[in-house]
């Protein structure tokens, strides 16, 4: 499979996507609503056989973004599922750790630092914040940037 075929195979999930962005030849961003991210990730992981690399979360003021990065090693392409979470009060998204156990820890980390709830995550304990860190304070959110816990 080459890159063109890879891009073409994405038409099978085009109903779930808002758009596909291509920054450079080796990077594809699949922008979707948070409800569809689970399905899109499943397609990329199971059908296209991509490798899960990592995930990142961004606070971009109007919404939270969760980015799942997958690598298509055959063509050297990185596909990023960019899920937009528009509910800023209670951000939540379906966990992909159900079918990718390797995503458990990074989802726990995103939950610790960004406060994004991962629904149906098998083990949502605290991962990297200090044991005495207060509940409900998410240090990497924009509005808590200057707050400091003594």
């Amino acid at each position, binding site marked *: 499979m080459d890159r063109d075929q890879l891009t073409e195979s994405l038409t099978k999930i085009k109903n779930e996507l808002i758009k596909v962005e291509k920054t450079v030849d080796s990077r594809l961003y699949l922008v979707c609503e948070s409800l569809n991210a689970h399905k899109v990730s499943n397609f990329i992981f199971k059908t296209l056989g991509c490798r899960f690399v990592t995930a990142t979360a961004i606070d971009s003021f109007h919404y939270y973004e969760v980015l799942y990065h997958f690598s298509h090693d055959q063509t050297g392409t990185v596909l990023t599922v960019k899920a937009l979470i528009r509910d800023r009060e209670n951000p939540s998204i379906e966990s992909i750790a159900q079918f990718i156990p390797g995503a458990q820890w990074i989802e726990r980390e995103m939950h610790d630092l960004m406060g994004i709830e991962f629904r149906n995550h098998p083990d949502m304990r605290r991962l990297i*914040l*200090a*044991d*005495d*860190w207060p509940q409900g304070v998410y*240090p*990497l959110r924009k509005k*808590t940037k200057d*707050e400091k*816990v003594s």
Partner: protein
Amino acid sequence: MSLSAKAVKKSPWVFHVNTGACNNCDIEIVDLLTPRFDVERFGIKLVGSPRHADALLVTGVVTAQAAPRLKKVYNQTAKPCVVFAIGACACGTGIFHTGYHVVGPVDKIIKEIDPNAIIAYVPGCPPKPEAIISGVVKALSIL
């Protein structure tokens, strides 16, 4: 000079504490202990327990999680105990000083439990092994 101070100067046994370092300072400490610099020729020996230690080599900024543990480790050491703050982060929090997880530099945390603690600073990011040896020599010479 008391017997214990004399013993510390003769052969300081060190215990290595990482309170949140990026590992770069730790790599330099490993350099010290391995054959190229081999500080054991000066009697400086790495030990596995703070109860055996005369000196603490503390690397990294002190995080909220590590601060109580650093205090515990310091309390367990035999006194006099020299605390070496190795690297820019341990000396003065460095680039992490606005971090949400940062409590303070090593000297602040140690002085909370022992205001008269002997603290030596070896700045650098990371400090060269030569700089650490020089810091140890200077600290021991004022004991």
